[in-house]
């Protein structure tokens, strides 16, 4: 064994010792689903202290990981998905992904697993700081708070990946671009749990794209299978406005969502509603969904406030 390998092993061992043990996740009674499981790794439980490849996670991720464990983020996500009748099991986990500073959560078709990356949460906090400090980097179209942005962006990203998981596991025919479809799933789900949650999730993700966007200057800048960030932002705002016009009226009055686009948003939402009801709706246990909707603790009160 080389010195480097020994050092790596030692670091991994230390990381494991330092991290809280969450080998057994405990779910809220009445919100379990045998097809929604957690990808546990030794004493880490589903909150891995390594990268996906098994290398020790960066020390800077410890705080984020601890916060996620304490908040029961993955457990709550699993409980939130409990109404789904899935023909195949979906696994949920968190890790340091590829070990990069900006790793984005992802769904793996091969593993049927959804992974939340610690570094992405850190990026979200950076975004929330920039937006709420009112820097020149991003315009404050409508009021928001740091808590709202961090929590909303996390939920938005997880819901986006849920879209990919649903397309794959339910074998849903996807005629448009899948990434756009996953954005639609995210926005649609955000709108099903009341005005406050809808605004928190959609605003946070729209601000995230406002913050990250760099409009392509060249032809190849449009090559990504995702829409350009600005497109994603307007799509989200449009679905929000189309689905809950009164709740999102300030998007239009502030000028964030151009009126030309806003006028057709009810139709865009109707198309999305049809698609969801036809392709995902039959897999939802409505009684369990009613229980999920009745629960009011998905977000903290502070995370749902605009100011």
């Amino acid at each position: 064994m080389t010195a480097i390998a020994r050092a790596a092993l030692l670091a991994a061992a230390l990381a494991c010792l330092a991290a809280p043990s969450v080998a057994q996740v405990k779910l809220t009674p009445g919100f379990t689903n045998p097809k929604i499981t957690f990808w546990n790794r030794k004493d880490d439980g589903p909150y891995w202290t390594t990268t996906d490849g098994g290398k020790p996670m960066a020390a800077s991720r410890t705080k984020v990981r601890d916060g996620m464990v304490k908040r029961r983020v993955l457990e709550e996500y699993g409980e939130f998905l409990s109404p789904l009748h899935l023909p195949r099991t979906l696994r949920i986990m968190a890790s340091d992904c590829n070990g990069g500073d900006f790793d984005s959560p992802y769904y793996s078709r091969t593993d049927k697993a959804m992974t939340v990356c610690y570094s992405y949460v850190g990026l979200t906090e950076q975004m929330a700081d920039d937006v709420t400090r009112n820097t020149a980097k991003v315009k404050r179209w409508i009021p928001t708070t740091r808590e709202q942005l961090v929590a909303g962006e996390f939920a938005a990203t997880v819901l986006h990946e849920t879209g990919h998981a649903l397309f794959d596991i339910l074998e849903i025919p996807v005629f448009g671009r899948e990434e756009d479809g996953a954005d639609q799933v995210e926005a649609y789900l955000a709108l099903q749990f009341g005005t406050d949650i809808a605004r928190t999730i959609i605003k946070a993700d729209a601000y995230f794209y406002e913050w990250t966007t760099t409009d392509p200057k060249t032809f190849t800048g449009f090559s990504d299978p995702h829409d350009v960030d600005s497109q994603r932002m307007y799509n989200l705002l449009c679905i929000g406005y189309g689905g809950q016009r009164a709740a999102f009226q300030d998007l239009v009055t502030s000028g964030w969502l151009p009126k030309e686009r806003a006028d057709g948003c009810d139709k865009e939402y109707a198309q999305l509603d049809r698609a969801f009801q036809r392709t995902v709706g039959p897999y939802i246990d409505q009684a369990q969904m009613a229980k999920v909707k009745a629960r009011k603790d998905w977000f903290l009160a502070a995370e749902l406030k605009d100011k």
Partner: protein
Amino acid sequence: MKRMSRMAMLALAAACACLTAAPAMAQLPKPSQTQSQVYTSPFLDPYLPASDRKLAPIRDKLKELHVLEELQAFLQPLRLPREVKVVTDQCGTQRRPYASGQPITICYEMVEQLLEMAPKIYPQNQQYQKDTVVGGFIEAALHETALAIFDVLQIPIWGRAEDAADRVSALIMVELGEDLENAAMDATIDLFRNSSEKIWTGTDFARTGSPDAQRFFNFVCIAAAADPDRYGKYLGKYDGDKTSGVIVPWDRSRSCMDGVSKYDDGAACNDDFHKCYKAVRAGTEFDQIRKAFDLAIMPYVDQDALIKVRATDWLNWKPGK
């Protein structure tokens, strides 16, 4: 670009050549037992008048070539729950997007634009110019037809409907044989690649459609997975690949050709995924749209009629044959 002798290829359109039986999709309307489909009215001239003197010759040429009759003939295998009329018209703009209950409309202005663009793309080659016009016409007709199919079959659409129509168009182009593929896909790629559309900025991104550049990559991605020998030349084989002809960056190329992560580890594939494209088709964007088509549209295609369509020499098609 393979040469095309006439506009006839147009209609191969929505009668996709995928012959594998597809599972029926729950809750879709039942396929009609009648012959209802895309049609031209037997009572009214579907080549609507062009009052613009520049467009009148285009209208006359389309009528002389019987392009709509041929479209109707090629779409014969489709069994739709209700009829969809198709016309050509002076629209006042290059496109009149399909709207539910309205006819599929091919605008003379769109053909005029193709006639203007083709010499700019191939200034020295008149045959290529003609092929570009023909292929562009096919793409436009397929796109509007796809939107009509979505509407009539009440197909749930994830993503933008306009992108979905492009993807179905691309699938039909690559699934109906080399002639259509070469004509329509080559022209589509050329037209989007040479688009005069300005790069989008600011609130341009609030539009409901996709910029031409994005549409270009969507078409190439499907074409390359379906026919790597012909269209793989556009794809970067490694990060920063500057090989002549390469337009699609490595990240998207991998997405086009390798949608399954387990193949990422294959050194041979990473060196040159053209060598192993057959193995990695599953999970590609091409595979995804083909599965969607098989699931949601193929149940409405009459297989016997489809065989007849495939057996017909459409390049030499004439009315009444």
